[in-house]
């Protein structure tokens, strides 16, 4: 990362701390917002948050590593997360998984070379009555069929 990008990130984080407050209870909302904007929380970002909240960086890393939605590695533009819990499983999630792997050319847990798509499983989305269901970034897609999945992927810009 370039020095100028780092200082941009520092400014951004200090604005977030100003907005949410520098108490420990603001840690999660701050991290969630960094995750949402950048798709991940880099080591540098974790250090900077720790500095401004006056806690040890290990404390921040402990929190980041605990929550499934907070990532340290670079995420693709479209993070596709397919629900694998029981009701979606019964609703033939396997056919959706197969379609996604075939169309994107990657397996679950992988990222496409152009960093456009990443594919992973997720636990219960609370869409059990409309399975199979998946999230693309924070948007939810339900009652999936292989054809519908191809259409959805087609429509991603």
């Amino acid at each position, binding site marked *: 990362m370039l020095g100028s990008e780092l200082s941009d990130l520092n400014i951004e984080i200090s604005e977030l701390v100003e907005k949410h407050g520098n*108490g*420990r*209870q*603001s*840690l*999660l*909302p701050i*991290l*969630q917002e960094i*995750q949402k904007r950048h798709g991940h929380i880099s080591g540098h970002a974790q250090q900077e948050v720790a500095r401004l909240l006056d806690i040890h960086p290990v404390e921040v890393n*402990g*929190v980041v590593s*605990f*929550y*499934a*939605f*907070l990532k340290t590695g670079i995420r693709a533009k479209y993070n596709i997360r397919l629900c*694998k*819990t*029981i*009701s979606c*499983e*019964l609703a033939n999630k396997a056919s959706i998984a197969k379609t996604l792997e075939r169309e994107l050319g990657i397996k679950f847990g992988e990222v496409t070379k152009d960093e456009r798509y990443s594919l992973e499983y*997720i*636990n*219960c*989305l*609370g*869409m*059990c*009555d*409309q*399975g199979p269901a998946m*999230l693309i970034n*924070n*948007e*939810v897609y339900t009652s999936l069929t292989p054809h519908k999945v191809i259409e959805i992927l087609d429509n991603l810009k």
Partner: protein
Amino acid sequence: MPILNKPIVFAKENFGDGFEKGLKMKPIDIVLAVRESGLKGRGGAGFPTGTKWMLAATATAEKKFIVCNADEGEPGTFKDRVLLTEFTEQVLKGIILCGYAIGSQVGYIYLRGEYDYMVNQINSAIQKLKNENKLGKNILGKDFDFDIELRLGSGAYVCGEESALIESLEGNRGEPRNRPPYPVNTGFMGYPTVVNNVETLATVPAILNLGSDWYRNIGTDKSRGSKLISVSGDVEFPGVYEIPFGTKIKDMLELVGAKDTKAIQIGGASGTCISAKELNRNLSFEDLPTGGSIIVFNNSRNMLKILKNFMEFFVEESCGQCTPCRIGNKKLLDGVNMIEKGECSVAYLKELLSLGETMRITSKCGLGQSSPNPFISILTTFGDEILATY
């Protein structure tokens, strides 16, 4: 998606001006009305709500907090999603009434990260109540200030456990605390905190509108009132249903159009699996308690595969803090894989069932205490079928 059958409590007209009536009452009278109604916690544990509120109301503390637990993560449960979409205002009013009753100024809604797309809707409902002076300073001209803040989870099932949820709100890893002390005594930032399920809080304005007696007369002696049930799996009409407590499994299956049923999972992954022969059992705290999830399996389903799905879930979602849950769930999952390959001796299976019992009594929180439930109930009820290939 609305509630599919004829609603009992969750019909718009039942809420009337319950909120305004409540704010005209003395705080302690709200607590008494909730206690009289017999309302119990709808998240699954079933602690009497009035008693919890009474403990918080009588506590002497500089600050008190309310947390609406909307971290609905139990597989097969989605009734809170429907409530927060269709009855957003009643959920918020329930939180405010609780605040007034126990003497608190701040309430949090802890919404699971998976429901991020609902944030704008909930925030605009909060703003609407602020504009109507039903939230903020001097609510409806009374000497009562209250604010609600929406906070998000980040994909950890264990945060549905109340003390883990509080840890998460405080900015920590969502690792459950030892209980006691309970949150109602030592909760958020060490202050008395009422943690209630979305459904519990949303029921309160209806109770205050139509009276405790109206509510008491629904359901059974030990389980008063109604319950929202999320139905999924092999049924014709999946969705959310409202039923009076005491409803028989037979009637529930008919309502949702279940055919050729083999088994029913009651209470989600951490619940109990019963065979379709147990049709006369009923949904209530005294027989089959549930936080609101029913998953139906038909005769084409392989029960071992279902069990494997549940155990994989618990291995991933265990927070890893205590040994019985962290290692125990792994051992149970290994056992399922061994059974699948025909490599698990019956003697070892008995060992695993006994390990499950140990996990029930030695795990630190509800997750570990209930995670062996599907293992024990599926292998007890469907053991013959599963071991038929032996």
